[in-house]
């Protein structure tokens, strides 16, 4: 989970999860079990259902197995997500983008995702935190080669929850390809979704004159207040 890289750094020091880390894993909307001791090995796909073709990959497709709590498929929904450089252009400071950084679907619905990659390099639309009894490692994943379109279908759980959607190519999420999937009304926003929520860590973007200005402001306040205090004492 690159989303939790900083969390991992903390954890690697202690080997245990602090209470706040547990809390953070909730705020990232991931089950504690997934973001906790159990590490997910992306290189071992033995448990996944992989469909690989020259256009890309669909992993853990599910057209008919119902999540617990879903008496039936509530409906069919179709999403088309475009990915690539051009979808980052209206936001400064990111390189890669998706046409939709937030999508919302009905609980228990069957969602058909058409992922259109308009760049010339691989991109991914990867959902995390889904029930593991249906989706190995909790993932549903579409990967399209440059210039290709891939389609995959999965069935979302019954509960209102927000799921992380991202491209797990190195730095693609950090540089813009991070989104969220809201089932029902979701369970709150994730951090750092372009156009949706603020970056958890953000540079200060101070102008070059800021240090001088700040020193002058505090010095003036100091002198003025000292003068005021003296006058009134």
């Amino acid at each position, binding site marked *: 989970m690159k989303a939790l890289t900083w969390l991992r750094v903390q954890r690697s020091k202690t080997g245990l999860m602090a209470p706040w880390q547990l809390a953070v894993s909730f705020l990232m909307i991931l089950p504690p079990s997934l973001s906790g001791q159990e590490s997910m090995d992306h290189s071992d796909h033995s448990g996944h259902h992989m469909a690989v073709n020259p256009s890309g990959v669909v992993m853990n497709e599910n057209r008919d197995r119902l999540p617990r709590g879903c008496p039936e498929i509530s409906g069919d929904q179709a999403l088309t997500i475009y990915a690539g450089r051009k979808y980052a252009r209206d936001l*400064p400071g990111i390189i890669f983008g998706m046409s939709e950084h937030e999508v919302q679907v009905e609980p228990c619905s069957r969602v058909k995702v058409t992922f259109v990659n308009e760049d010339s390099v691989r991109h991914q639309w990867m959902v995390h935190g889904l029930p593991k009894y249906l989706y190995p490692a909790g993932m549903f994943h579409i990967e399209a080669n440059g210039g290709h379109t891939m389609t995959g279908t999965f069935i979302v759980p019954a509960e209102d929850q927000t799921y992380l959607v991202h491209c797990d190519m190195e730095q693609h999420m950090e540089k813009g390809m991070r989104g969220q999937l809201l089932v029902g009304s979701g369970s709150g926003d994730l951090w750092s979704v372009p156009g949706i*929520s603020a*970056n958890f860590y953000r540079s200060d973007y*101070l102008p070059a004159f800021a240090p001088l200005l700040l020193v002058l*402001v505090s010095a*003036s306040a100091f002198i003025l207040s000292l003068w005021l205090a003296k006058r009134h004492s």
Partner: protein
Amino acid sequence: MKKRWLILFAVLLAALSYPPSWYPLTVRVKMTEWFGAADFRPLPESLPVADPDPAVFCPPDPAGWRQSHLIEGVNIRPSRPCVADNPYAVASLVRGTNNVGQDTLLRSGLAADAVEKGRDLDGDGDPDEIHIRLEVAELNGGSPLTPGPVTAYEIAPGIQPGLWVFAPKFVGMAVENFESNQARRSLRLPSPAIRIEQGDTVRVTLENSHYMPHTLHLHGADHGFTDVSGEGNDGVPITSEIPVLPGQARTYELSPRHAGTMFYHCHVQPHVHVMMGLQGLFIVEENRPENWLQTMNIGAGLVRAPSVSVRDDYDSEYDLHYLDIDKELNERIQGENDPRLITRSMHRDYDITDAATDYFTLNGRSFPFTFRESLLVGKDNERIKLRVVNGGAKGIALHTHGHKFTVTHRDGVELPQQTLAPQDVVWLATSQRVDLALDLSNDGLHSYGPGIWPFHDHQYNGVTNDGIGPGGNISAIVYAQFMDEGGWPQTRGVSWDQYFDPAYYRKEIPVWEAYAPGLFSDTGADWLMLLRLTGLMLAAGILAAILLHALVNLRRS
């Protein structure tokens, strides 16, 4: 009490303006649990960048110096790049400045005794008595009259490090004209490449026109420790002679028995003087009949009147002189004018053991100016001889794109035939020389075919101008079909505009602005953040004043 209100105001202000992103992590996590992730706030927009204001890439050549010439019976080959040597100087340096007509000499700019050529001692049809005179010139030096450097010489757009060079003996003004501050065209870095013939009776007179002591040391060239009169002849102050003081002259003598690519430099405080530019190629050519040599190659580069032995084996010959520059040293001649202060600054304050070099020149220029005058231009199947010296403080890993060259000589000594093998990187230690054979045969080994193929130091600092790339000693092997009439290579990459704008090397232009505008530009400011910090500092000032006041009152009571 008013003070109480002031304290309340300051504390409230501090609490409100403290940036939430600076809260402790545990607090942020708790807040996220309660309120969710913070709302999206776009990152600041990219700042607009002014269009580049480039210098002329390729200066015109109204006097036709680039063309082939026949002057004083000397065949002077054409020079394809934009900026070429003065052919009248070339002719005068081949015939001897004492043997050419007044008109040629005037057009050459050289003094009548700059290179005197005398008798043909071995009767093989060329002169063997050679008397060379060198002066010492300062470029980009200081002045009590003007703020900018005088006798200005740009190694790259806007870059003018102070330099010392051995210069051919010219007549007249050091600058282009009375209104100009620019060094005359032939007065430049590097010190000229000197060519003499094996067995010649050579005298080199150092006329020290500079304000500091200097000597001449003939590195690698066969010379006696003393001259015929018993005077020191090695140029080394600690072992052979007292240096030549300002206004003095000394003549060095040699009659080299061995041919090869050698080196000359000043040996006074060499860690400073050699680094300042007092160094040049010293080439001893094989003795051949009718071997009229171009005694100096001003600015190095293409040899426009090559020797008989080079003409026998190669289609053309280039001298390549690499030199790196430490701006912290070279700017020391610009800040002060008093020679006592300069001497102290250069020889006692400056510590080369703490130094790193910043500029990397090839034949006295750095990229992009290297593309004006240091391109190696050839035709398919030609063979080019390169004589290379690394005069810089650091080693260079000279690499050619599209070609594998053969090192034929190292330090002026021919390598055994059976050891020769093509290679595409050659290491040159400081002061080392190699002779390279560059073969433009498209055989997939020696050449990969016609094109514009860069060659450069593959140590990465060497391809920058003070850390800004591209810069440094990048030049190119250009096949003639890729050169335009004016002498500029028909490149198909990034626009040259930004590289010819001094602002680029002043670090004012984002490096990829030319082809990815806005994407990697400078960012605007986050005014909300600045407002918060201003509020915070205001509160801090107030609280500090109140605290101080309280402490003072406490002590009084």
